[in-house]
């Protein structure tokens, strides 16, 4: 209990620290968004008009302390302000639209690669030393050492441009209305196939290796030998004894990577022009859309904190021995 409480206090402190960094970081970036907006447009605004507009966008020239307090207050009340680039769209709405796509793409990719990777890891560990094991290990090495951008671009080139099997970007056909009709859903699936496949390629390797190594570590344990001695079938021993125990740390690793996954898949979204959270953040950085950047970093940090807490919870519940680490 004390352990959990300490962790909770830490998370609160971390959240405040993250929110503070969040507040200062965009303000330290050179240039301001109004300038960007007008350096692009061809209008000849006089200085008075520019200042008037700055006022309406909330760039109060209040002392930084005041701005900070106002920001902290808004953070805890869930008000993330309005986007500058897409004025007057609230940040929460903008991120909400993107979140749906990210959850869909990234969520499904994670589940698929987790299941696939874990299965592959189990089988590779069981058939240790055989060709299967080597192939799986090599594929895992490949997927963990090649940049996401490279895999995405290659996929796009082979399947998008050369073979033309999949569209070159986008969440769905822009001509269609979002609705729950068959045409739209099919279009979404068609457009999401390539990015999802790329993510699966990227993620499976990690899960496979994790599972494999955990399994290998376990295979020498007594209860495995015991299971075999009892006359249980190979599959049973493999799945119900070894795999189940090796699953624990793997699930923990999944929980931790959820935070990362929500935070990005950025490169994949940028290459495939998928309108998810990662792409939104990227566009916001290019446009210096402070409210969106801040809102997004905050959400991602919170997601990481939550998933870390879940992991801590699972430790305490399942293995008090590991408290020290």
């Amino acid at each position: 209990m004390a352990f959990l409480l300490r962790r909770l206090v830490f998370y609160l402190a971390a959240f405040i620290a993250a929110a503070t960094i969040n507040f200062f970081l965009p303000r330290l970036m050179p240039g301001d968004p109004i300038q960007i907006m007008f350096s692009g447009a061809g209008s000849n605004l006089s200085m008075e008009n520019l200042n008037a507009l700055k006022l309406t966008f909330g760039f109060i020239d209040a002392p930084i302390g005041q701005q900070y307090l106002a920001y902290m207050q808004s953070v805890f009340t869930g008000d993330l302000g309005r986007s500058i680039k897409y004025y007057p769209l609230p940040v929460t709405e903008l991120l909400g639209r993107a979140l749906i796509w990210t959850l869909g793409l990234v969520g499904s990719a994670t589940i698929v690669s987790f299941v696939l990777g874990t299965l592959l890891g189990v089988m590779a560990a069981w058939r240790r030393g055989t060709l299967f094991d080597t192939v799986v290990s090599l594929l895992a090495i490949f997927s963990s050492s090649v940049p996401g951008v490279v895999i995405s671009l290659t996929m796009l080139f082979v399947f998008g441009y050369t073979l033309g099997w999949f569209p070159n970007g986008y969440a769905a056909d822009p001509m269609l209305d979002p609705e729950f009709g068959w045409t739209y859903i099919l279009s979404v699936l068609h457009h999401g196939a390539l990015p999802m496949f790329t993510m699966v390629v990227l993620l499976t390797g990690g899960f496979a290796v994790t599972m494999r190594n955990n399994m290998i570590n376990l295979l020498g344990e007594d209860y495995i030998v015991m299971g075999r001695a009892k006359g249980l079938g190979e599959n049973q021993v493999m799945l119900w004894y070894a795999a189940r125990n090796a699953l624990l740390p793997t699930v923990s690793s999944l929980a931790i990577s959820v935070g990362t996954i929500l935070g990005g898949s950025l490169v994949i979204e940028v290459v495939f022009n998928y309108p998810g959270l990662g792409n939104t953040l990227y566009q916001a950085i290019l446009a210096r859309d402070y409210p969106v950047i801040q809102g997004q970093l905050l959400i991602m940090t919170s997601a990481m904190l939550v998933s870390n807490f879940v992991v801590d919870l699972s430790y305490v519940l399942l293995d008090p021995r590991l408290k020290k680490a």
Partner: protein
Amino acid sequence: MLKNKVILAASAMVLAMAAPASAQAVLTVSSEQTTTWVRNFNPFNQTSARATTKDFIYEPLAIFNRLAGAKWEYRLAESFELADDLKSISFTLRDGLKWSDGEPITADDVVFTYDYLKKFPALDFNSVSALMESVEKIDERTVRFNLLQPNSLITTTIVAMPIVPEHIWKDVADPVTFANETPVGSGPLTEITRFTPQIYEQCRNPNYWDAASLKVDCMRLPQLADNPQVLAALAEGTLDWATSFIPDIDNTFVAKDPEHNKYWFLPSSIVAFTLNFEAPDENNKKAFTDVNFRRAVSMLIDRQTIIDIAGYGYPVINEDPAMLGEFYKAFSNPEVATQFGQYGKFDFDAAMALLDSSGYVDANGDGYRDNPDGTPITIDIEIPNGWTDWIDATQIAIETLKQAGLNVAMSTPEESVWASDLIDAKYSMSLNAIASAANPYFPYIRSFNPDDFGKSRFSAQRWTDPEVVEMLNKYTQVKDPAEQKTIMDAIQLKVAEALPVIPVYNSPSFYQYSTKRFTGWASADNQITSPVVSNANPGRLIQLLALEPVAQ
């Protein structure tokens, strides 16, 4: 069984026959690129309103058609009259004009709009209020603008301002943040029939005064985030009208459907190298303020290669030392080319000779040319990060400049940092774009008026000449076209002699179209108007009215 089939067949036929009667002429357009549509049709929001708000929802009083005879086309106004003393101008609205909700459009709306601008300066994106002494209603259809100074070019400024309905906007508490989601307008397409983050449709104004000319019922605007996406849509044949940079357009677009896919690039803003006359580095300043140095640098720019490689051949070359180029052909002074033309052309040997003879030789043996007094010249060309065509152009320019012995490098700060450096004149050399306008007066006054130094990036070179400024002022105060021409000729000659900026090319404004579903498109053979569908071009309204659906 057979009976069912017959019934099915019969009903199918009936449906098929009924369909064309209710089919609308829908034009699919890409006018701006964004990642999500936000429902904002406020015509005063220059940067966040949808690009189809101006001209299509809020029709201008008149449109200057630069291409078809350089004349005014009257839209909401049936005429306007500039007083002889150039201190006032009156517009007369057409009879029987109605807003899309049925209310009449009257002089009250015009007066209201201009009072509104005074009340909320953030809306005045054209700084027109500052020129007005007063705006008075003469009668139900006539408004007179009384100016503070005589100004022959005031018409262009006035017609750029949208007129909004008093009966709607007088109740708006904060017009700057008002999104105007269900606009009441005066233009051809005012009704928003569908709006999602991915697509929206803008349809016919039930009370449009020129409905007889309008054969397009709706405009459909799919959300497209960037150039590759627009290209994909164009290549698929789903877009009718677009304005986007397309690489290698003959192969990537035209080749997909040579019969229907077409494009026409018109020259637009001037892109020129600027050397900072107030450069923070004293040694650089010595070189930059010497016209011989500038002339030599100008002759070291291989404009054609830059156009071919960095610009894919799309821009139009600008070798005019008076900065105007092809775009302002109608105004150009042939004397400029005769006396100073050579300084605008790429000529490596002549440049080397000029540098040598002006004393820019390597004094300290470091391999780079120095000032005649021996002090070093180190040039850093600032280009906004991410503007790849400019970056490419600069890299090409740097190659030749280095060959000639100049110490140049390129840095790519953030766009807004670049903009502020230009505004505050804290850079040494850069590329700059000056928007083109109906009359060369505008680029000249925006670039060389000392009152504008420190306010916009167009005056980044910080050069001025009191005679030129005086002549520009006089230009707006004379009414006789012949007199205007004499003044403009003299101005050009002065500018060409000083070569304050080094023009490279005129950016193309992009225009792609398909004749699959609509005909009547402007083209090089059919120059009815400037057909660029971006919101910087009011002429697009004329293009819209010239379109006719093709029988499918």
